[in-house]
C-alpha cells in the first residue's frame, strides 16, 4: 500500500491541492509533516523571490577575448582546405616533373659525353691548336 504522504505529494507534483479526505486519513504526525512541507515550500518561494536578483546578466563577447567575429562554417573550412591542397599540389607536381626532366637531360648529357665524342673533339682541338701554334703570326715574326 502506498504511503499516505507519498500519495499527498503526488498531488503536489501535479500542481494540485491535497484533497481534504486524504488529509483526514492522516495521523497527527503525518499531518504535521505535510504542514511542514507546505510551509517550507511557501517560505522558500517567497525567500527566493526576494533573494534572487532580477537584474539582467550583461554579456559582451568582446570582453571575453574569445571571439574574433569570424565564424566560417564547416563546409567553408573544407572547401578552403581542398583549394589549399590543390594550390599547394600544382607547384609540387611541377617541381617533381621538372626534377624528372632535369634528371633525364643530365642522363642524356652524361651519356653523350661518355660515349667518346668529347675525346674526339679534344683530339680535333689538339690538332687545331697545334696548327694554330704553328701558324701563329707572332711566331712567324721570329
Amino acid at each position, binding site marked *: 500500500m502506498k504511503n499516505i*504522504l*507519498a500519495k499527498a*505529494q*503526488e498531488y*503536489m*507534483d501535479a*500542481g494540485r491541492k491535497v484533497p481534504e479526505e486524504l488529509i483526514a486519513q492522516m495521523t497527527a504526525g503525518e499531518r504535521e*509533516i505535510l504542514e*511542514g*512541507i507546505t*510551509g*517550507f*515550500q511557501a*517560505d*522558500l*518561494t*517567497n*525567500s*527566493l523571490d*526576494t*533573494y*534572487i*536578483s*532580477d*537584474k*539582467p*546578466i*550583461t*554579456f*559582451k*563577447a568582446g570582453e*571575453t577575448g*574569445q*571571439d574574433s*567575429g569570424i*565564424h566560417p562554417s564547416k563546409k567553408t573550412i573544407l572547401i578552403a582546405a581542398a583549394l589549399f591542397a590543390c594550390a599547394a599540389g600544382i607547384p609540387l607536381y611541377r617541381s617533381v616533373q621538372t626534377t624528372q626532366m632535369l634528371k633525364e637531360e643530365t642522363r642524356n648529357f652524361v651519356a653523350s659525353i661518355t660515349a667518346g665524342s668529347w675525346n674526339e673533339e679534344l683530339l680535333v682541338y689538339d690538332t687545331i691548336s697545334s696548327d694554330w701554334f704553328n701558324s701563329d703570326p707572332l711566331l712567324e715574326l721570329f
Partner: protein
Amino acid sequence: MEMSSVGIPETLSDKACIKRFQRTREEAVFNCLLNRYKKYIRRIIYAVAPGITVEDSEDIAQETAIALYSALPDFSMRSSFSTYLYRLCRNKTVDHIRQKQKERRLSRRILHTIPAEPINNSEIIVEKRETMNTITDTLSRLPEIERTLIVLKDVEHRKLEEISRILKKPVGTVKSRLHRARIHAAEIYKKEKEAGTA
C-alpha cells in the same frame, strides 16, 4: 509586436533565438535569450551553493554566460535548452566553488552562512530576512541532489520528466527522492525555526 530592450521580438521562441544566434552570432539575440533565464540561472546557483555571496553568484552567472556563448553554436537541440543550461550552470558553480576552495578564499563557513547583503538591494523587513536565513541554513544542510530537486520542482515548477532528463535519473527515482527531500527539508526547517526562536 512587443520588443525586448535589445530589439528582439519577445514572441521569438527560445528555439528560434538559438537558431538565429547559431546563424548570425548576434550578441543582442544571445543577451535576449540569456535574460529570459536570468532567474533560472541564479536559482540553480543558489540551489547548488546556498548562501553563496552576491559577488560569487554574479561571477558564476557571468562564467555561465561566457561558457554558453562559446557552446551554444554547437548546441544540437537534442535536449531542451533549460536542461542544457542547468548542466552548464551547475558545472560552472561547482568549478567556481572548487576554485575558491583551492584558493582558500572560500571556507566552509561562507557556504553555510547567509550573504551579508541580499542580491536584491531593496529593503527587506527583519522577519523576512530571518526566514531567508533559516531557508538558506535548511538548504545548506540538505544534500545537493535534494536541494536541486526541491528548487526545480517546487520553485521552478518543472515537470518530473524534465527533471529526470536534467538530472539523468529515472522518473521513478526523481519522484521518490523528491518526496524524501521534501520531508527531510521540512524536518530540518522545523528544527532550524525552533532553534532560532529558542
